[in-house]
């Protein structure tokens, strides 16, 4: 068994694909950055991301996949689901060994698993387009902390850029410790240490804009008012808005008085 150690980026993974073919490595397992202790008897192969190798693999895939299928591979990578790197590798082997486009061959397990991962990423980015709740600071920055299941910031960037073109905003992924920031012109990646206790009442008093608390209360009030008590359906509610998202959803956080 060979453990492939790469830098955790998509390009790193693509380079790894090249080298697996290059060195005819067998029986592979992927690891991000560090050697996993579980695999005592394996040999290690460390991959250094290489632009030329990336280009060669990607152009080979581009020839055999549709535009969506090609994009999809990257989306599957962002899903970060269990064993996705290995599934993606088997999928790529299948794609490269076929003379026709096989991305719709759903009776093949790897094709199906890959499609599921793509769907998961898509669902999670759609959720983040919905569940972001910006808070306005005194210096007029709209910011939010999210903890999505998949690494979706690269996918939701354009949505927020084209929608909130006239306000500065920052979306910070607390799980992956980086954010995207829009300065009214461009979006850039930022890696900062962020106080994730931003929902505390202290935050609002210290750095919140003066209208911020009122708007949050208005939103909570609205959320309560539109509910129809006699149609209560908790199962459906939870299905659409699973509990793991609640701590970053204004309407699911008690107001300041209720928080003490």
């Amino acid at each position, binding site marked *: 068994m060979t453990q492939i150690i790469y830098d955790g980026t998509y390009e790193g993974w693509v380079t790894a694909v090249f080298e697996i073919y290059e060195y005819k490595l067998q029986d592979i397992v992927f690891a991000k950055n560090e050697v996993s202790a579980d695999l005592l008897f394996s040999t290690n192969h460390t991959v250094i991301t290489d632009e030329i190798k990336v280009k060669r693999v990607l152009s080979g895939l581009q020839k055999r996949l549709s535009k969506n299928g090609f994009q999809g591979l990257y989306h599957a990578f962002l899903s970060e689901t269990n064993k996705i790197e290995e599934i993606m590798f088997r999928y790529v082997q299948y794609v490269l060994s076929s003379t026709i486009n096989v991305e*719709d*061959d759903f009776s093949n397990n790897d094709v199906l698993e890959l499609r599921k991962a793509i769907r998961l990423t898509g669902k999670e980015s759609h959720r983040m387009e*919905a569940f972001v709740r910006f808070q306005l600071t005194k210096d007029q920055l709209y910011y939010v902390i999210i903890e999505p299941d998949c690494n979706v910031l690269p996918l939701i960037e354009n949505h927020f850029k084209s929608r909130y073109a006239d306000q500065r905003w920052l979306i910070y992924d607390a799980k992956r410790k980086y954010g995207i920031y829009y300065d009214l012109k461009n979006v850039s990646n930022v890696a900062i240490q962020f106080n994730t206790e931003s929902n505390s009442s202290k935050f609002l008093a210290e750095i919140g804009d003066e209208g911020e608390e009122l708007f949050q209360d208005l*939103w909570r009030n*609205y959320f309560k*008012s539109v509910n129809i008590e006699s149609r209560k359906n908790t199962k459906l509610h939870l299905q*659409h808005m699973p509990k793991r998202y609640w701590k970053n*959803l*204004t309407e699911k956080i008690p107001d300041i008085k209720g928080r003490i």
Partner: protein
Amino acid sequence: MVHERVMEKLSILADAAKYDVSCSSSQSNRKNKDNGLGNAKGYGICHSYTEDGRCVSLLKILLTNHCIFDCAYCVSRKSNDVKRAAFTVQEVVDLTIGFYRRNYIEGLFLSSGIFDNPDYTMERLVRIAKKLRLEENFNGYIHLKAIPGASDELLQQAGMYADRLSVNVEMPTEKSLKLLAPEKNHIDVIKPMEYLKNEIVGYKEEKKINYKAPLFAPAGQSTQMVIGATQENDMEILGMANYFYDQMNMRRVYYSGYVPISYDTRLPAIGTPVPMIRENRLYQADWLIRLYGFNVNEIVGFDQPNLDLDIDPKLGWALRNMNQFPVDVNTADLELIKRIPGIGFLSAKKIVAARKFKKLVPQDLQKLGIAYTRAKYFLAFATPFQLQKDLTSIQIKDHILNTQKSKYKNDFSNQLALF
């Protein structure tokens, strides 16, 4: 600047608006203009979900719940003893912008009680939309109510600023309307719908020739019918819906299960359960008509004017038409595969894509995520691993009912006891 006093208005006027079930923000692709605020997404975004499981996509409020009409089914009727309130134009604009900038909503859904007269009310609604678009450079979604009886000029202006317009027919038949809202006529509702339909078609044609032509209600129009307040059967309701889809180019018809809010003896008493299963079945039937290529006559007819409550309308159709089955998914047309109970239109598409690579067997279908325990009675395979033939439709129905767990099972046994 929004003030504290808006808080109470918001709870009154959001509460009064919540019985309008539409909250869709889809089917408009309005672009962000000149680096302004907002855009609309064709697929729509639900930003939150209330505890009743309904989507919250838009800030759905009434401008006011003062109303000169006394429609028995409406919570804002003149004779009802409820707290009244009214927003100013500026308050609605500020709330919309403040919510939108924080990504709480996709836009505004503004309706209103009729105060003074229809034109006066409609003029206010239009003024808000206009202010949002022109002064705030807001390109998010706007859904406006078209007030029956308002002038064509005002409706025309509304269409220039809104993404969607809707006139609610409320009662499926003229007879019910006369019973519960004697001051109203169906024709008052049909007239603005017809006007809007023609305008929407006209602007669309123009847009094809000149891409710079202005948008006019790009997300079309919708309407709503209250279900279970009056005696109509499902055939009358779906017949009316079909008329709206065919004749008025409606994008959506909504069915709103009546929530008892009045001691009026013409209506179901307070405490009567909301007819949620029936509402659910009507939506399923609506989907079959819009997305699955079913004709309304295949779903309901004079011999069976109401939808089955215990099984969905697609299964109901299949059991009445056993001669169409079994279907071989390896060779059948997409349209026929979509008609198999347990296979949705996305799965149907996947099946048609996947069968190009190899002959599909039952295990493949199971992996694809179709409801196989339901579909298996209607499928034919060259090498079946389980023979399902020779069951009557009643036997199949029993088998399926025994294996499924209805989310409404409790409500359902209650309802049966009523009959």
